[in-house]
């Protein structure tokens, strides 16, 4: 599940960053959460058992597009199309959805059992054929296969209600990608030849909702009466108004125009909760890791001691407090999103892998490694050169920029000059891909299985020479031992074996610091329990509390009217 | 170097000669003949007055002589300088020898420059004086143009000078490079009557002392009479009468020259010769000809504009006397044939009726 989930988590984490992310993800990514909002709909909030969700950003108005494959579709698409399994990215829990179960035969053959009695919302029955068709369709249209499934898949075959996936080579984690692939009806899509460019104004899915009304400024979903678990769905109607921009979205949320939103709100207690303390609640669970990524081909980043010193010297607590308003925690260096992924944590690593803020220790490490400072307090390496580097942050990602500024002032204490640069996102990602950057803030993690995160972060197969674009592992970590650990993991169907590999990689992360982890990116979610209760919470983390992605399928089947 | 010393350099002065100079302006499909085969010359140390109204072409001549514009055809020569083909890059060099005095003493001086600065710049630029010697020479010039006492005037700026003083400063600036030719474009027409003589006689005096030639452009025949050696009367780009100033003005033969003379305010004459006596060609024309359409209306300036701006095709086909439309003596001959300058070198006139018009009665054509 490296593709979708990675992107998903990227958005979770990057979503912290204001406003800028586009709709160019795969199905069900929001436009960035701390974002935009718009318009109207004061009256919508009060309607019976309906829900107003501030998540979809028209910028400025909506395009009538519910294409589950295309970028730029409506958020509502993910309330209509369903995957085979629901994977809870918070804790990796797998919940059967359109499939009722799976089993591995060896590590190259996966067999899924498909649910019976499900109907498409146009009344046609849903079957395993539709599942097989969907995967065949991906093969047929490589531009839809963002997850690169067919790079490992050999074939997909149907027998009865069973679908069998044959792999070219072992790739156990690919299950998560298969599981989260949304299934489309064969009887509709088999005639669509250019799926990417279709607008799909009348989506036919198996999900709990169908499109009610649509205007450029607002659309509604209404309950699908034929839904296979219709009894669990309490919300009859969902309203998606246009989000608008940052300020107005926050003002709207604050003034109670929405029942559910996913926004970064400063001082949420005062700006949201206190407006209606009885009902207004929020939960910002961690969803990924924001780290300081370095170009390991360059000095001084190729020096493990230097990286270690930085890990001690950066005041991560301050970042969490100031840049992220204290909503997030300092990240563990092991690369797991804790506490959700705590079952993966290597117990031998102290303090859950968090490097405590300790400037003295950092200085000590540096001086032991041959660095020294000159009269002006500048840090010099062993050859006597001063140390300075550029730290790139995408333009407009305000919390990241603030983070970078704190990194800057932290490292100044060591005598390191950091120049914060804010290029456009394209330039930012390009300079990482081609390895022409010094350091950058990056997001990773938050995937259903930590393997995906580690693989993209550390696998040397992604490493490209400087100047050529790499799609992953942009810090260019190249270590045969790490590769061996990943290789072992990808083949392991046994969870114990997977755990052993994970422990090893966590050690690499902790001791060799390929990246310096800073803090956990949060999933923003503010909701009102005035009409419905049963929202995911720290106590009951059955799904990420996000109104986008596949989480709503889970949440909408958990919400109950307040009686 | 004093101006008396300049006089010793008499050999520097040169003769200005215009031969068959024609200037045609093409502007937006309209062709204007500003000058039509104008020839005359200015001998060293002489003042030639170019007389005519606006549109007569006298300013065009000034621009051609100073190299600002080039003639369409014909030659202009000042000493060794072939002015009509002078390349732009040599213009600066040429201007050492040709200087100009402007009509408006208020706008021809840079308000930010002092008297001294104004006089020193041409010395430094054209004659490569050092700063100190330029300063000395500038004081000398101030004396010459009577901007004295020097200490009082040296650091004054133009707005602290009276009109006459400004014009004397302008003249001083013009003689600073020891030019061979001074072009004085209506130098007194904006000054009060009471100070005109002062300025004019200064120019007169300077040309005597330095031997430079002066091209004196004016619409005022009286001042021309006072200082000029020769007079050239221009009408619509044609020389209609020329000769020794006294001859031309006292015995004007061309009707246009006579109009000009008549237009000079002359208080003594006007009261004793009542309006109905003497030559009143303008009025006669206005009342008789019935040419009252706006453009060839009898008013002279209107007529000049209308006639000199004709379509391209007709330009070179124009025949007849340029003045015929306004001439009370015009005959068929005037319409069909173009008169040329006739007469002695002392007095030439281009008019078919030059000899007879003095006594003849106006014809009603």
């Amino acid at each position, binding site marked *: 599940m490296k593709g979708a989930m990675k992107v998903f988590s*990227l958005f979770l984490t990057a979503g912290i960053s204001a406003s800028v992310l586009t709709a160019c993800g795969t199905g069900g990514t929001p436009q960035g959460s701390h974002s935009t909002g718009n318009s109207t709909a004061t009256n919508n909030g009060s309607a019976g058992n309906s829900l107003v969700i501030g998540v979809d950003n028209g910028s*400025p108005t909506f395009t009538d597009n519910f294409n589950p494959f295309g970028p730029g579709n409506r958020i509502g698409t993910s309330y209509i199309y369903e995957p085979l399994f629901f994977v809870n990215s918070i804790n990796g829990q797998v919940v059967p959805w359109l499939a009722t179960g799976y089993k591995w035969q060896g590590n190259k053959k996966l067999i899924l059992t498909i649910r019976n009695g499900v109907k498409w919302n146009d009344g046609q029955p849903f079957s395993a054929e539709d599942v097989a068709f969907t995967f065949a369709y991906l093969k047929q249209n490589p531009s839809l296969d963002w997850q690169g499934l067919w790079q490992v898949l050999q074939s997909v075959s149907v027998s009865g209600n069973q679908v069998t996936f044959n792999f070219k080579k072992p790739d156990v984690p690919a299950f998560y990608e298969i599981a989260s692939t949304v299934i489309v009806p064969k009887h509709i899509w088999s005639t669509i030849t250019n799926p990417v460019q279709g607008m799909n104004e009348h989506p036919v899915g198996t999900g709990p909702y169908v499109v009610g009304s649509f205007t450029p400024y607002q659309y509604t979903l209404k309950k699908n009466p034929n839904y296979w678990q219709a009894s669990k769905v309490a919300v009859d109607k969902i309203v998606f108004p246009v989000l608008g921009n940052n300020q107005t979205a926050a003002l709207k949320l604050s003034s109670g125009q929405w029942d559910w939103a996913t926004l970064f709100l400063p001082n949420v207690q005062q700006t949201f909760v206190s407006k209606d303390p009885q009902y207004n609640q929020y939960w910002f669970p961690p969803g990924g890791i924001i780290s300081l990524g370095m170009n390991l081909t360059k000095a001084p980043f190729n020096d493990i001691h230097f990286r270690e010193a930085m890990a001690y010297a950066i005041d991560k607590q301050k970042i969490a407090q100031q840049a992220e308003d204290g909503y997030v925690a300092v990240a563990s260096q092991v690369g797991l999103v804790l506490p959700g992924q705590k079952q993966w944590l290597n117990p031998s690593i102290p303090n859950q892998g968090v490097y405590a803020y300790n400037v003295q220790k950092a200085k000590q490490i540096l001086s032991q490694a041959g660095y020294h400072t000159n009269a002006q307090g500048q840090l010099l390496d062993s050859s006597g050169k001063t140390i300075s580097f550029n730290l790139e942050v995408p333009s407009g990602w305000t919390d990241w920029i603030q983070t970078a500024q704190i990194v800057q002032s932290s490292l100044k204490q060591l005598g390191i000059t950091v120049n914060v640069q804010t290029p456009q996102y394209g330039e930012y990602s390009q300079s990482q891909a081609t390895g022409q950057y010094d350091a950058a803030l990056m997001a990773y993690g938050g995937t259903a299985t930590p393997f995906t995160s580690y693989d993209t972060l550390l696998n040397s197969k992604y490493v490209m020479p400087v100047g050529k674009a790499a799609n992953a592992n942009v810090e260019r970590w190249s270590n045969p031992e790490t590769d061996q650990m990943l290789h072992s993991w990808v083949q392991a169907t046994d969870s114990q074996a997977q755990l052993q590999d994970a422990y090893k990689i966590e050690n690499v992360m902790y001791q060799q610091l390929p990246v310096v982890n800073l803090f956990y990116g949060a999933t923003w979610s503010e909701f009102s329990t005035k009409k419905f209760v049963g929202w995911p919470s720290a106590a009951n983390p059955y799904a990420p509390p996000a109104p986008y992605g596949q989480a709503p399928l889970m949440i909408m089947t958990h919400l109950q009217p307040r009686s | 170097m004093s101006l008396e010393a300049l006089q010793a350099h008499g050999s520097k002065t040169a003769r200005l000669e215009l031969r068959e100079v024609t200037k045609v302006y093409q502007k937006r499909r309209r062709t204007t003949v500003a000058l039509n085969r104008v020839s005359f010359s200015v001998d060293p140390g002489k003042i030639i007055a170019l007389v005519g109204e606006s549109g007569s072409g006298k300013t065009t001549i000034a621009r051609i002589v100073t190299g600002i514009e080039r003639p369409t055809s014909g030659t202009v020569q000042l000493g060794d300088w072939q002015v009509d083909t002078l390349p732009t890059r040599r213009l600066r060099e040429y201007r050492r020898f040709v200087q100009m005095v402007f009509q408006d003493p208020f706008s021809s001086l840079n308000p930010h420059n002092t008297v001294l600065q104004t006089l020193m710049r041409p010395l430094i630029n054209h004659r490569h004086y050092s700063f100190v010697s330029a300063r000395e020479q500038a004081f000398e010039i101030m004396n010459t143009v009577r901007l004295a006492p020097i200490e009082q005037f040296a650091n004054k700026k133009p707005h602290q000078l009276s009109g006459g003083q400004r014009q004397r400063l302008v003249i001083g600036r013009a003689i600073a490079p020891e030019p061979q030719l001074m072009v004085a474009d209506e130098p007194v027409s904006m000054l009060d009557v009471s100070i005109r003589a002062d300025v004019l006689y200064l120019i007169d005096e300077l040309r005597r002392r330095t031997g430079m030639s002066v091209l004196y452009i004016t619409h005022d025949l009286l001042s021309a009479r006072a200082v000029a050696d020769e007079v050239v009367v221009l009408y619509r780009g044609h020389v209609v009468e020329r000769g020794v100033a006294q001859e031309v003005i006292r015995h004007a033969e061309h009707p246009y020259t006579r109009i000009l003379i008549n237009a000079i305010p002359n208080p003594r004459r006007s009261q004793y010769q009542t309006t109905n006596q003497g030559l009143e060609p303008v009025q006669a024309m206005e009342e008789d000809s019935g040419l009252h359409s706006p453009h060839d209306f009898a008013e002279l300036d209107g007529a000049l504009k209308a006639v000199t701006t004709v379509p391209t095709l007709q330009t070179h086909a124009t025949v007849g006397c340029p003045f015929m439309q306004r001439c009370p003596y015009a005959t068929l001959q005037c319409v069909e044939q173009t008169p040329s300058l006739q007469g002695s070198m002392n007095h030439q006139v281009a008019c078919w009726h030059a000899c007879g018009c003095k006594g003849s009665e106006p014809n009603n054509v």
Partner: protein
Amino acid sequence: MKYFLRKAGFLILTVWIAVTLNFILPRLMPGNPAQAMMAKYAQQGPISPSQEHALALMLGLPTGSLWSQYGQYLGNLLHGNFGISYSFYPEPVIAVIARALPWTLTLIGLVTILQFVVGTLLGVYAAWNRGKKFDSTATVLFSFTSAFPYFWIALAFIYLFSYMLHWFPLSGGFSGSLSPAWSGAFAGSAIYHSVLPALTIFITGIGGSLLGMRNNMINTLGEDYILLGKAAGLPEYVIATRYAARNALLPIVTNFAMSLGYVVGGSLLMETVFAYPGMGYLLATAVSNQDYPLLQALFLFITVSVLLANFVADILYGLLDPRVRKGGVR
């Protein structure tokens, strides 16, 4: 007629320059937007060459030599094909713009004209009553209002009138429950939503018109024909309007045309704040989304609109000034 032709020629030339600038600029800048787009997609997983090609085709990225690209580009423009928006994928850019354009044209167009008319009238009044209370207050006051950044005024308005007082909606162009249609309800909603945006443009823009007209008018009042009009005992309103204002208006019209670009620029920022469904907000989102095809098309549309408005103003000028109309000076 000649004047008209000359202005039309200039219009065509400037449009061509804008179009070409639009073509060249992305190609001059370091960092290829298409590659940036690729990099963004590549975040989602390794891209095989075939996928890269698919992506290039999907996004309509240019291929071929620069000249053939240019030819293709011009051809596309003529057919109204501005490519496909990245952020509204798969919607064509032209469709996205078609939704936004009417809003901006109506709002900015109407308010700018209104602002110009009212400002100019007040300017006439101030100049005519020069040195009096209204004049001295207005000049200082409007020096300030016209100095406020558009977006800042907009922010202040939203906070005050929408958030605090709930008089007006927080953002948007119309109520979400309505569909754009020629109905009274929709028009009412649209007008209601446009009050604050309109007020923003009006308040920040009116100062310029007022002060410009005032100064020009004072200048004109020094002309001889004004003095003569007074000497002739013409009624004050005749001198103020038909003599002074009429003439003072002439340069103002050209200036108005020239400053349109700036008014539009300011209004774009204002739209961003109000999330008004017009070109400005679209532009801001295109910028933050690096939606280059949309960005370019927007620039072109805005520019051409401004150029057209300019052209109209020039023609108007020609009609107002007999010297131009009758082919005299100029």
